[in-house]
């Protein structure tokens, strides 16, 4: 009886926590489908017109395209570099693998706004100004630890003897990689890419100092828009991002069976 009561209390506690975490997200989603002109507003009728309104704003569409391009490039750079590092850390024994892993995950502890500022000052010193390459570089650095973590998890489940078996059966090092190692790691690589993509796609502080009107990202454009007003259209835009995040989370779980932990 008391065990049941305490597990009920536990469930109630978890429900409260999840309600707290989800409340602002759910509220934005509800407001995006609400047929009222102000925000926040009492519920009126269901509408999709705020989503249609986004399509009339070329600024947002251009920025969304820039953000996709930026996130894809940053994720590719981060995942390639992380893959090579994770392989090195897994395949060879080191005197201090932890020290190397700690250094490689150090960007996690540097405030993103400081990373953006640092990159701005490097670019100014080199006379480059706000250029797209710098934006890609700083995003890649920021997402790299997340990619490394996921790819290292993939390697840790991998049996070193499989690679040796491939080689002893006459496959070259490259062929072993292509036909044994890579396929086994594919779920983790795809997960790392998706994670890096999303983290870069939604990030504001990294880009704030590094964009100009032609390289504005979706978060920087949203930031500028919210400065002047908040309306249901911006809620609709946020809902698109929320939907993308939800889809990514579900896809990682369902098809790749990969989570941050577990």
């Amino acid at each position, binding site marked *: 009886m008391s065990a049941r009561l305490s597990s009920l209390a536990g469930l109630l506690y*978890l429900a409260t926590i*999840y309600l707290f975490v989800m409340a602002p997200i759910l509220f934005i989603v509800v407001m995006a489908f609400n047929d009222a002109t102000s925000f926040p507003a009492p519920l009126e009728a269901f509408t999709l017109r705020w989503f249609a309104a986004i399509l009339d704003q070329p600024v947002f569409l251009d920025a969304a395209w820039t953000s996709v391009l930026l996130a894809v490039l940053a994720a590719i750079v981060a995942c390639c570099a992380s893959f090579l590092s994770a392989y090195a850390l897994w395949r060879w024994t080191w005197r201090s693998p932890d020290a190397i892993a700690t*250094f*490689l995950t150090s960007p996690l*502890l540097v405030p993103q706004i400081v990373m953006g500022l640092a990159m701005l000052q490097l670019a100014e010193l080199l006379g480059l100004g706000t250029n797209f390459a710098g934006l890609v570089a700083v995003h890649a650095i920021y997402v790299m630890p997340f990619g490394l973590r996921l790819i290292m998890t993939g390697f840790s489940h991998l049996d070193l003897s499989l690679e040796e078996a491939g080689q002893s059966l006459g496959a070259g090092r490259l062929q072993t990689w292509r036909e044994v190692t890579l396929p086994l790691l594919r779920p983790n690589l795809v997960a790392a890419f998706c994670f890096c993509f999303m983290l870069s796609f939604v990030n504001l502080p990294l880009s704030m100092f590094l964009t100009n009107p032609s390289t504005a990202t979706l978060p920087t454009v949203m930031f500028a828009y*919210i400065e002047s007003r*908040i309306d249901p259209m911006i809620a609709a835009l946020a809902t698109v991002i929320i939907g993308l*995040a*939800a889809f990514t*989370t579900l896809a990682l779980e369902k098809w790749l069976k990969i989570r941050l932990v577990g």
Partner: protein
Amino acid sequence: MSTSTSDQAALGTADHASARARFSVRHIPLILLAPSIVLLFVFLVLPLAIIVLTSLQPNVLLTFDAPGIGNYGYMLSKSYYLAVIVRTVRIAFVTTLIGLPISFLAAILIYRLDERFRNIALMGLTFPVLTGPLAIVLGYMALLTDGGPLFGPMIELGLIPPLKLLGTETAVIISLIQFVLPFAVLTLYTAVSRIPQQLYEAVTSLGGARMSCFLHVTLPLSLPGLLSASIICFSLAASSYVSPYYLGGAAQQTLTTLISQFILATYNSQLAAAAAVLLLVVMLVTIVAITAFFRKFIR
């Protein structure tokens, strides 16, 4: 001709071959690590060094012999900037102090769920991380207003006085707890899930109750996880930008919003650099302090 060279190579010493093998074994991992390390050096370590050098330079506001600590002296002598530093630490500290125990209990309870619900619970934590702070803070801006759906009806009925939460530290802390919670729970879940199940059985077989399971097994064995989680909470809260900017506003400036103000409004990169270095120092000092605190309990 070609045969003789290959013969020579074949005859030519096993030493040679093994030296070459040793070369490749020793250098391949370094080559593999090179891209990450070079990227980090060029785009993180070097730019951070440039920030430190910039912060030592005079600027439109302050003249002194370069390199000098004039910018730091200026900021640390003005009560306004001191208040910004203290506020940054206070917000991050309160967020950690409230967020950590909440997350710890949640992590323990999630671990006790059966597998299907546990997976859903963990997914529910990944999702807000991938959503990012901008969309979430937008929700808070509408949710925390006095006319919003949360307080609006209560205020109208006279149940509570108008709260005017927006623009206060409380609003910033509420949203930061929400922001750090998934990271803290995921970190602590990993720690809790690594505790061997037999230890709990041992405690219960010796007649221990639930509470002694927690005090003698869960808590002590989770200390390394609690250490990481509190470092993560504090760092994320101290370095957050979106929450203090939108929910705290001009009245509740933190070091991050101060940096953006120096760059975007007053165009003073030297003072921005000094503020950035101060933020890094504050975080470093706190991380060292938190580590020292937990080390006392970790045997």
